[in-house]
């Protein structure tokens, strides 16, 4: 299978700090790839390199190749179009202080879509895709800030979907949510991977085991192990991976 992202020899310096060391990974399409590891291991930093959110921080120096469908995202693409193709969902639900409809329509509008009919269609599809349509269809004009935390997070997923990406990056998308909302998001991920490629950072090992196809274990900026999820959780090759997933540290 042709990989979606092909990352090779990626090094990232944050000022003096060497945050990612020679990271090489290929991320396959229509799969959920989980990135796990203790806090500060570089998994979130790595995630952000995939859609160049690191550009917004100062003092970040990147070296190496990140290819999306064979094109180097740092050399052959611009950040704006890249981010429209590679959507992102954040740790804290962060809807804009606008109506539910306006939140979802924001991405398509950025891309110049003005037709009301077209926008309505995109918004509905995105909200359906994020399994929140039934809950909000009667209050599309109401402020998004009135939704519960779990609904807000699904709205943020819908907002990302509406921009028409083919990859979704999720940075601990359930860490701020209650168990019921969490399971809804997890179900959603399994559903979404039919159409999208998902890369998810998670703190929760069970979550990684439940929903991901492939898992990468990060430690101190390095990828220690990257393999099939089932295999990694049943018989890890590296001692450090085993220690981490059995809860001996981290």
């Amino acid at each position, binding site marked *: 299978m042709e990989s979606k992202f092909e990352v090779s020899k990626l090094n990232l310096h944050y000022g003096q700090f060497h945050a990612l060391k020679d990271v090489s990974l290929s991320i396959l399409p229509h799969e959920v790839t989980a990135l796990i590891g203790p806090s500060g291991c570089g998994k979130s930093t790595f995630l952000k390199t995939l859609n160049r959110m690191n550009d917004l921080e100062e003092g970040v120096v990147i070296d190496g190749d990140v290819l999306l469908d064979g094109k180097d995202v740092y050399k052959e693409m611009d950040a704006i179009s890249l981010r429209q193709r590679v959507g992102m969902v954040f740790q804290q639900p962060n809807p804009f202080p606008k109506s539910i409809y306006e939140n979802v329509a924001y991405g398509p509008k950025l*891309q*110049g*879509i003005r037709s009301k009919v077209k926008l309505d269609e995109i918004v509905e599809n995105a909200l359906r895709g994020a399994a929140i349509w039934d809950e909000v269809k009667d209050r599309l004009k109401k402020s998004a800030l009135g939704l519960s935390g779990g609904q807000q997070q699904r709205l943020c997923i819908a907002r990302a979907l509406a921009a028409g990406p083919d990859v979704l990056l999720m940075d601990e998308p359930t860490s701020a949510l209650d168990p019921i909302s969490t399971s809804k998001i997890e179900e959603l991920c399994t559903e979404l991977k039919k159409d999208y490629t998902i890369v998810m950072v998670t703190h929760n090992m069970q979550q990684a085991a439940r929903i991901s196809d492939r898992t990468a274990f990060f430690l101190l900026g390095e990828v220690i192990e990257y393999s099939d999820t089932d295999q990694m959780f049943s018989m890890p090759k590296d001692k450090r991976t085993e220690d981490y997933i059995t809860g001996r540290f981290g």
Partner: protein
Amino acid sequence: MKANEKAKRVDRVMTWIFVAVAGFFILLLIAFALLVIGRGIAGFEPYMLSFTRDGIGNQLFNTVYLVVLALLFSVPLGIATGVYLAEYAKPGKVTHFLSICIETLSSLPSIVVGLFGYLVFIVMVGAQWNLVSGALAVSILNLPLIATTTKDAMESMPKGYRMGSMGLGATHWQTIRRVLLPACMPRILTGIILAAGRVFGEAAALLYTAGMSTDINWSNWDITSPTCPLNPFRPGETLALHIWASRTEAIRPDAAQIANFSSAVLLILVFAFSIGARVLGRRMERKLAGGK
């Protein structure tokens, strides 16, 4: 993708506009300062510094004297009001009303305060223009700044300070006096210096209180005499008022040069105070933090 191209172009244009506006403004500000100071220096003659009818020495002295008098009134009252709000006031109608009062005072046009001062300190007392009534009027303008600075500083103190002191058996007042106020001093002092800087430039509130004449005899040290420099109940024209006066009531041929020079002196004074407050505040913060 066409929309992206357009968006990026707009983004570039807007960025340039912001940079241009910011640059324009900094240039304007620098040009303004240079113009004022430059013109002051260009027209400078040594006699302008003299403490006579021709120079601005007397006005400069009046300005400083007025600042001192005004702070004498506004500092104790301002700090006390701030302490009251931060420490003693119970949440409720009176406290809420007091904050509204402070806000009202801080947004009063200074000419209105000047009129109030004129009515109460001059007309009702039956006095002539004098420095004390000018100082009182200016204190009203200063009061809100000092009170809010004190209140904010006290409220930002860590809870531990209060607990620590009270836990040792100190009374509330002892805690305020010996622990909280000293710890707040850097910020309060910064506020006071900023307030003083404002008094330097105040003119509208002094128009009908401190008056627009000055007649000082530097060999007269009888404090009850109207020409004694230190008599606070004599009329005292400040630098700012002098600039205003030289525009409207200019009868002297060198009025413009004098006003230029006065503006330069005033601007330098105000800048010095403002920068001084900043430097001092930062240094004292650092000292307190370093002592931890």
